[in-house]
């Protein structure tokens, strides 16, 4: 059962005590973090239920809380996955999606099945350091998504096999010369 009241309570406690400003002892800061994490855990169930209801499909929804440091075990290890984007605004938005991945070539399709331009960029060394070995991803997949007002879009991502093309005649000559 999804429940947002745990997070509401944790947020209320945190705001009342200025929790984010550091004006508390370290062990109290740890307790605030624990309360917020527990609140977000139960909110994830709530969001999963809401998305299942909106989509008419019950999926195994995964929330990657460390996307900002390129950590998401599902996307980094899967050859096929869905990216579901929910827009809480009353106007449509274009959103730049960055997904941690470990392959080289991917195909992204929008909700209508049309291919979407995408790019793969390497994860920076700094991100590797700050993720402290949690990052299974070597790169990030980037694409632009469009999300309707107060609604969601589902993009599917497929990892493509890298086909080694036969050498051209010029490349053969170069190889032989080397």
């Amino acid at each position, binding site marked *: 059962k999804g429940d947002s009241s745990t997070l509401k309570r944790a947020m209320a406690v945190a705001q009342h005590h200025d929790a*984010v*400003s*550091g*004006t*508390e*002892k*370290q062990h109290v800061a740890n307790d605030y973090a624990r309360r917020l994490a527990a609140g977000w855990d139960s909110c994830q169930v709530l*969001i*999963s239920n809401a*998305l*299942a*209801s909106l*989509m*008419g*499909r*019950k*999926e*195994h*929804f*995964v*929330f*990657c809380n460390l*996307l*900002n*440091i390129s950590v*998401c075990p*599902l*996307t980094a290890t*899967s050859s*096929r*996955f*869905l*990216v*579901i*984007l*929910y*827009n*809480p*605004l009353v106007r449509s*938005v*274009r*959103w*730049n*999606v960055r*997904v941690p991945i470990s392959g080289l070539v991917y195909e992204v399709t929008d909700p209508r099945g049309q291919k979407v*331009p*995408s*790019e793969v*960029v*390497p994860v*920076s060394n*700094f*991100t590797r350091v*700050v993720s*402290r070995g949690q990052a299974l991803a070597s790169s990030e997949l*980037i*694409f*632009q*998504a469009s999300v309707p007002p107060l609604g969601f879009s589902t993009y*599917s991502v497929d990892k493509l096999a890298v086909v080694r093309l036969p050498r051209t005649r010029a490349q053969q000559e170069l190889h032989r010369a080397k």
Partner: protein
Amino acid sequence: AVPLQIQNEHLRVLFDSDTGLISEIQNLDRDITLPITQNFYWYNASSGNGASSQASGAYIFRPNGSEPFPIAKAVHTHLVQNTLVQEVYQNFSSWCSQVVRLYVGQRFLELEWTVGPIPIDDNYGKEIISHFKTPLETGGLFYTDANGREILERRKDSRETWKLNQTEPVAGNYYPVNSRIYIKDKRIQLTVLTDRSQGGSSLLNGSLELMVHRRLLFDDQRGVGEPLLEFGEHGKGLVIRGRHLLFLDNVEVSADLHRLQAQEEFMAVQTVFSPGGGSPYQKK
């Protein structure tokens, strides 16, 4: 010798070929060019002095001098140039880095900074700022928001309703920045959207600064009883990653841009993943 640059349909950003720092931003739609230098600095946190025993701490920001120290005068840069996104990676030190990013179609410049763990081996508490220097004639005025609602005009070394005796030249001019801060002259406005509440100020004409992180060695005697050391999960201090979004435009149209973008930042799209292959679901 060719200056590094990134560009989309709306903005062009140039980097100094000697220092690797941002040196100029151009708004291509309005033909606006603003020389700008952005760098990270640190204020040395006060442990108390002859004027007052007050140390910088969790409640109190009190640097022991008005001049911040640059974390690096020149940075190592690395350019990633693609069709959808162009990024310049700037490495300021082993604990401070930044990605300067432009997505296709985007009307703002994104600065994604990573700061920490702040080193304290030298026994100096440090308050880290991102600092922007421009030639804008701002007349000591800058603007900060109040919880994303009313934008308030701030005047250096001044208060609107009483005669101020300024005793803290830096901290006394710092104001809360809940979502945005800007400076402007008669024509041009430089706006920075933050992704979290920070302290900010404009201490010199045309400058703008935001405090992004701090790590302190002394308690400020306001009740916590511990210095703001931020051990974090690994006992070495916290690493913070955040974003600043920069808008450069005419004064007249800037609000249209930063207000709409702020909505997208603070009511952000929720991203959820799924391996797929789910089953049909009905509410009943």
